[in-house]
């Protein structure tokens, strides 16, 4: 095991810990100076010379959430044992190379993960069940050749015109966000008084209405689940659609976004990243095979079997952005849509081809899909996207 090489100015434990905290912060964990002090206090409370105890103590103190808990071991190894500097040349992207001084992608590196597993307790090995990993280890087998050439999505996201697409998405999200239930339920604050409960409670106070209970119409926001096709035939639209997804995610609604080509991956967290450069980096790591073939029904099935159970409910609008050209069995697509239909409130298909003159849904997949759609709308231009808002108001 290698010994950590620290900058010569790092004089003692405190310096190194603060360096570690900075390293965690750079990797997206929310820790600050207060945590540095806490970390030192925690190390005092354990055998700090025992690397494993120190690792456990710092993990308990700094992880903060389930995601951090899974990533912590890799980050720890990377900082203290220099594993971050061992990288396989093939697993690099342009984006990562730019930031090579700032290690970012250990979670992607199988080598680092293996070392962690052998180095630490079995029970603490990182769980491979997070979003990115599912996309990588998915069971789907591509029906066409998988295009593994990597593309940097930043070039698809940096134009000003994309802001319009984001605005259109925000408008749609706003149109469906402020839904309230028709019934009034008891609430801490609210416009109306709940006279029944007030009266009942007043009995306990000798008939004096001392506790004022209130009622309000609780919010019943609609959720959006967007599934965006990024296969070869959609390349020209994907930059706009990605901006559209980013607008949906960033609008404060409950929204969930997925990309698919021959596989499906969840990109909600990547799109939510405020640091848009890092978001682009994460997306390009996920979108290997971006611009290859399409397997819509397989992707939808993967979605249903994995994320679907949590993502769909009776107040969900499923938004599919695709041209419907796909190499899989149309019948399977129909079946998958029927399953989604049972779980979700509405299915809307945004089709860039629909805006074309004389377009007929003759692609076999579209014909199989049509019966299950609540709306099949055009989305080939920014104007078309902006014009969707009134449609959603109705849904």
């Amino acid at each position, binding site marked *: 095991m290698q010994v950590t090489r620290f900058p010569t100015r790092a004089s003692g434990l405190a310096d190194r810990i603060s360096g570690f905290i900075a390293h965690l912060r750079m990797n997206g964990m929310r820790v600050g100076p207060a945590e540095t002090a806490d970390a030192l206090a925690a190390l005092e409370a354990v055998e700090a010379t025992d690397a494993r105890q120190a690792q456990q103590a710092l*993990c*308990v103190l700094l*992880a*903060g959430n389930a995601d951090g808990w899974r990533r912590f071991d890799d980050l720890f190894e990377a900082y203290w044992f220099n594993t971050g500097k061992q990288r396989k040349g093939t697993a690099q992207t342009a984006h990562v190379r730019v930031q090579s001084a700032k290690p970012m992608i250990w979670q992607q590196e199988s080598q680092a993960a293996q070392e962690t597993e052998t180095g630490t*307790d079995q029970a603490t090995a990182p769980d491979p069940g997070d979003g990115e990993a599912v996309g990588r280890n998915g069971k789907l087998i591509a029906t066409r050749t998988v295009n593994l050439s990597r593309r940097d999505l930043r070039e698809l996201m940096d134009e000003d015109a994309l802001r319009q697409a984001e605005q259109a998405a925000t408008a749609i999200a706003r149109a469906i966000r402020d839904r309230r239930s028709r019934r009034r339920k008891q609430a801490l604050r609210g416009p109306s008084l709940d006279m029944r409960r007030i009266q009942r409670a007043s009995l306990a106070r*000798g008939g004096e209405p001392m506790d004022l209970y209130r009622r309000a119409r609780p919010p019943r926001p609609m959720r959006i689940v967007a599934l965006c096709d990024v296969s070869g035939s959609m390349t020209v639209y994907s930059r706009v659609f990605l901006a559209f997804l980013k607008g949906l995610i960033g609008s404060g609604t409950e929204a969930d976004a997925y990309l698919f080509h021959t596989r499906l991956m969840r990109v909600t967290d990547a799109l939510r990243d405020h640091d848009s450069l890092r978001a682009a980096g994460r997306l390009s790591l996920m979108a290997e095979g971006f611009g290859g073939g399409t397997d819509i029904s397989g992707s939808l099935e993967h979605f249903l079997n994995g994320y679907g159970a949590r993502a769909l409910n009776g107040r969900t609008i499923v938004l599919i952005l695709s041209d419907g050209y796909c190499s899989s069995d149309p019948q399977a697509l129909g079946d998958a849509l029927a399953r989604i239909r049972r779980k979700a409130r509405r299915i809307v298909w945004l089709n860039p081809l629909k805006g074309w003159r004389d377009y007929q849904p003759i692609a076999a997949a579209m014909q199989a899909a049509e019966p299950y759609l609540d709306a099949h709308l055009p989305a080939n231009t920014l104007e078309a996207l902006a014009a969707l808002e009134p449609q959603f108001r109705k849904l």
Partner: protein
Amino acid sequence: MSLQEIQQGLAEVGYVADDRLAMALHLAQTLGRPLLLEGPAGVGKTEVAKALAAQRAARLIRLQCYEGLDASHAIYEWNYQRQLLAIRASEAQGGTSEAQLFTDDYLLKRPLLEAISEEEPPVLLIDEIDRADEEFEAYLLEILSDFQITIPELGTIKARSRPIVILTANGTRDLSDALRRRCLYSFLDYPSRETEMAILKARMPEVERLLARQIVGVVQALRKEDLEKTPGIAEMLDWAAALSGLGVNDMAQSREEVQATLVCLLKTAADYDAAPPEVMDRLIGKVA
């Protein structure tokens, strides 16, 4: 108290804690910080608090959170009835000042206030914090960071002893960063095969080795299946109790009992249909 002592102490009261959980409990006690436990349902989050209380022979004060839980149910409330009675009585006799109405006598202590006014440090379990509203989290912040409660009429009440606070959550909604930052964190996942064997042995020493291995093997395999409600440790223990209560020694020998007792493990109709006898045969065959 050292790590090993904590682990041993918990083992004595029948709770098998892995290294990292023991470390979390150790730090929670030495640093005096609350501990936030997350994880899927049925992995023993609530049980941690109970075991800890039993091990320390401390009182367990539990606050079950729900939507709409407010300060008057969680922290304190004035006893209005008594106050009104006092006013009426004093009207008859003449002369009670208002100041006498807001004293300890008229204060109803709810779990949080109770926890900080104990002489001996109790274990305070705030269960399913993610079910409570976000406003309630804000109330908690003062208590969790400074262990004090401010009552406008009485002033600030400081903790006599620092309770050991354990919060549990299972992801109904995201908790605020402010709350997370004040807590130590531990994620409990479904146990590994060895840990689960140890748990079964600690809780039910009477179960035969062969049956125990089969039970744990089948439950572990079931967790990998696509089920709506994945069976947790509690379900596994129920099932073990049911099987050993029926006098089963070997699952392969008594298939009917196994199928009949599956109700202990699978809690929805769809899951029950997903485990017909053939599937169970396959799972048991794999284990044996």
